């Protein structure tokens, strides 16, 4: 058990190394992954064996008196019983404990982010609410991360995961520039991130991000997630509010929009998502990525946008409510 803990904490201190040998978070000795094409049954059997080897043999820790059941022994028990204690709760099934630990200690996936390509570049927009269960932990989270002056990443899922790995991606992009004397393409950057996330597949990272940028081939947009998926596309929306954002976005999208029209479309789409989705809210940020890099177009509080889009109509009332006179 102690060995397991040591291995796991070693693992966690170097998250950016390739982890092919240390991938299995269980007690088996590291094995080389030669054949990738195991069928489903073989994979299941292997998992079963691994899980069985996990069960700890705790017979040595049981009370000695339990082995000698007699009236004499029972009386002796009270006087000479060796001290015994229960193992702490997490020890029997450490994998399950670890899964639960990761689940409880990270942000939920409530958010709305979107990005789309049009003739003038890429528009990226997001809300700014972070929730932990039902509690709003922050209304001012930066969900659009500036990887470098011409590339943006969006954040959905675990806030710490997104922040850390986007920063790591920024470092890798810079190293690529220094090593190759040219900027990295959006394709390349998204592939770097997707490969890192794939190597952590199954370990509980939660990232749903879009990498948007402008490189030599023009505007680029990729969706990358922690399951290892990577998709190239023209329009994406990620998060719990994405269905609402898609409705507005798909309705108003035209490839030949001006920058202002695209800006307004993105802002409205996020606003409508925050209106209907409880886990989205705060401030709508909209960025534009053009041939000279990204520029932040606007940051508007959602409640102010509401009254701008739907101004209060004065309605006749019978009794006007007035403030109580100051005492």
């Amino acid at each position, binding site marked *: 058990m102690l060995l397991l803990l040591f291995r796991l904490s070693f*693992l966690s201190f170097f*998250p950016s190394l390739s982890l092919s040998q240390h991938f299995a978070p269980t007690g088996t000795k590291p094995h080389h992954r030669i054949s990738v094409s195991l069928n489903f049954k073989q994979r299941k059997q292997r998992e079963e064996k691994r899980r069985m080897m996990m069960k700890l043999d705790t017979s040595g820790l049981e009370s000695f008196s339990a082995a000698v059941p007699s009236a004499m022994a029972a009386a002796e028990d009270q006087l000479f019983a060796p001290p015994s204690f229960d193992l702490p709760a997490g020890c029997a099934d450490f994998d399950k404990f670890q899964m639960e*630990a990761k689940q409880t*200690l990270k942000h939920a996936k409530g958010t709305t982010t979107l990005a789309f390509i049009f003739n003038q570049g890429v528009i990226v927009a997001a809300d700014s609410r972070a929730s932990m269960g039902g509690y709003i932990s*922050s209304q001012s989270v930066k969900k659009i991360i500036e990887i470098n002056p011409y590339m943006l990443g969006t954040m959905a899922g675990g*806030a*710490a995961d997104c922040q850390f790995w986007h920063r790591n991606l920024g470092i890798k992009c810079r190293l690529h520039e220094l090593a190759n004397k040219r900027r990295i393409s959006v394709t390349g950057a998204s592939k770097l991130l997707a490969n890192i996330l794939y190597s952590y597949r199954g370990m509980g990272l939660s990232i749903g991000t879009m990498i948007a940028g402008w490189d030599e081939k023009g505007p680029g947009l990729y969706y990358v997630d922690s399951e290892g998926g990577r998709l190239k596309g023209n329009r994406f929306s990620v998060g719990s509010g994405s269905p609402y954002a898609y409705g507005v976005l798909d309705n108003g999208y035209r490839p030949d929009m001006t920058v202002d029209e695209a800006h307004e479309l993105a802002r409205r789409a996020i606003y409508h998502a925050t209106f209907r989705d409880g886990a989205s809210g705060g401030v709508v940020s909209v960025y534009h990525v053009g041939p000279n890099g990204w520029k932040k177009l606007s940051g508007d509080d959602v409640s102010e946008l509401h009254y701008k889009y739907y101004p209060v109509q004065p309605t006749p009332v019978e009794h006007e409510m007035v403030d109580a006179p100051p005492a």
Partner: protein
Amino acid sequence: MALRGDWMYENNGGTCVAIAGIDYCVVAADTRLSVGYNILTRDHSKICSLADKVVLASSGFQGDIRALHKNLAARHLLYQHQHNKQMSCPAMGQLLSNTLYYKRFFPYYAFNVLGGLDNEGKGCVFTYDAVGSYERVGYSAQGSGSSLIMPVLDNQLKSPSPLLLPARDAVTPLSETEAVDLVKDVFASATERDIYTGDKLEIVVINASGIKREYLELRKD
């Protein structure tokens, strides 16, 4: 946020608050250490002074917090040897975030608030979750009483979001004494309704002239 308490972690309770001002920063935490319904001590400090201008307050599992503070203090010492100067608050903020994320798969059960002065002398508060996600804010509360205290701070100190364009300043216009009074009020109220908060309040104020410490007695029940 309620967490089940019977596994490898333990929740020792407590609340931490920090408020950033124009040229000062107030960091405060209660001094009660509890396990379940028992109070283990009334005199345990949750605040760690990491550098001249940087103070860290953490609540959660005190075993992990002790280890985390030691880790950061050691890293700061190394930094001083290598760079011949103290770490600034934003630098320490990034270091803490990375330290927390490096234990992403067996987290430090610590909810942190980092307070200090930035390179321009303005108040600077960073708030963290347990795995290292952080942001710079004007004020923050973490710990068992945070959901009681944050709404009051939002009401009194609500500052324009740093995401708004055109950008507006996030630090509060309150004076130092007003901010300290607010902190005392807020803890007194939290003590009334949170069983894990109470006994004594430790208030640390950082400004251009250094770090000042003050104590206030709270309800001991």
